[in-house]
């Protein structure tokens, strides 16, 4: 609806890494939850950023105790739940604008 395409959906951190690796043309933005089964958003983000430092990870979480840590490992933004679609789209736009090819 905002012109962006959803490249993939993962149900946990391990799946997220696997799906990210499978793309030859890597996605520019990842919307990451923190609390997930098998591997958390923080752990998955550390590994994904090692694979591709350019990707913009936007944390969307109801657990804002990890906000500082997420930003320190290289997350682009941390949005507390509850957020509106408008806020989400704005964050994605900011991430795309700052993406370096």
């Amino acid at each position, binding site marked *: 609806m905002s012109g962006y395409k959803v490249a993939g959906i993962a149900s946990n951190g391990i799946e997220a890494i696997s799906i990210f690796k499978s793309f030859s043309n890597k996605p520019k933005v990842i919307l990451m939850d923190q609390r997930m089964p098998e591997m958390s958003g923080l752990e998955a983000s550390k590994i994904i950023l090692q694979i591709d430092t350019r990707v913009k990870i936007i944390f969307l979480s109801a657990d804002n105790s990890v906000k500082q840590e997420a930003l320190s490992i290289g997350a682009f933004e941390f949005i507390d739940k509850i957020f509106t*679609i408008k806020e989400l789209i704005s964050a994605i736009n900011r991430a795309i604008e700052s993406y370096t090819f």
Partner: protein
Amino acid sequence: MLFLLLSRWKNLFSIVLKRLLLILVILFIFHTVSNILEWLYLVDAADTYGDYFQILIPVLWIFFFITYIQKITEKKRTESEKKYRHLFDTSPYFVGLIDTKGVLLDCNDVSSEILSIHIKEDIIGKNITEIFSLNEKNKYLIPIFEKFMKNMFEGAGTNQEPFDFQLNRSTGGYLWLYIEGTLIEIEKRKLIQFIIQDITERKKAEKELLKSEKMYREAYNRAEFYKDIFAHDINNILQSILSGTQIGQLPLDDPEKFYDLKLNAEIIKEQVIRGAKLVDNVRKLSKLEEAGESLEKVDILTVLKNTVSFVEKSYKNKSLTIRVDSIEEKLFTTANEFLKDVFENLLINAIRHNKNPMIEITIRISREQDLGINYHKMELFDNGIGVDDSMKNKIFQRGYNKDKGVYGMGLGLALVRGIIETYNGKIWVEDRVMGDRSKGSNFVLLIPEVD
């Protein structure tokens, strides 16, 4: 007072009298010897008696003086002994002396109270092995005290580390006691002087304090847990509802764009149900934690079949087959209203975590014995996504593991385990096909049998 005075003088008089008698005996011997000597023409008789008196008088004075000093010294010694004996006898603690063979040489009257004996003379002169053997339940103390004595008598220092021990009473119950020992030497003989203190009240207070601390910690953890649920889980649910309503409004703004409003409404409805379920689970967990939900005799099969029927109706839109295999018509246990929650949670989990077009669930019921207890064994096989080995324990834990950053599969399975444990049952998960989680799971329940 007069009696005491007379008594003292009587003692002194008797000692003096004894001394005089001794002197007279010596005089008599002296006289006899001098007579013999005179008879042998060795000395002159008249001069001899004068000489005797000149020698005897100073000797008499010396005797009296020595006697007086002895008496004073003895008196002081007796008074000192009395003083320390008084301290020993009136001590509020059980005080005693043991020799190298473990024989109790002396103790005070507190011993009779602590050891539940008639008088202390019942144990004085007895070995500690005999003393502890008076009560069968105290025999375990014999090697402990033997080691204690060995360390005292053979150890480098004169003192051994004090310790607590439990003494069972012949009248029932027990005392907690604290013993300290000191190695002493009396007349070149090594002895252990011990002091035993009754610390039963202190131990009770410590136990109450620990219990109180535990309750506080549990209450604090519960408060943190529920706080976390409301901060996190409810927010997630509300986020889904908000996003759903916002997405639902979009076609209203731009009717040319087509959205499946019905699907959106379903998502919102599901989130509301999820929220209600969360609140319900929290309420039930909270109720489980309160003292005693009463249990009664229940037919497991009836509850299971009713729950299966309810779940099938709730998931009419899914291709779902639930089969119950049981050779028995009735299976009894002691349970309560939450038993249906156990089955409901397990069945709904099996349906939700399944990506197959056809969902198959088989519940096989058999019997098993474990550590002498008879159980009904219920195995719930599904063809779902399975559970990774690393998660097989974690899924039953409550909520979020902050250290691992891993989130359990919600409150449902924590509730299920909590309920089963109140029935003294067990639950765990295996792979439906051993070693291949992709083929689905097998949730195993053991619920105690009742006639």
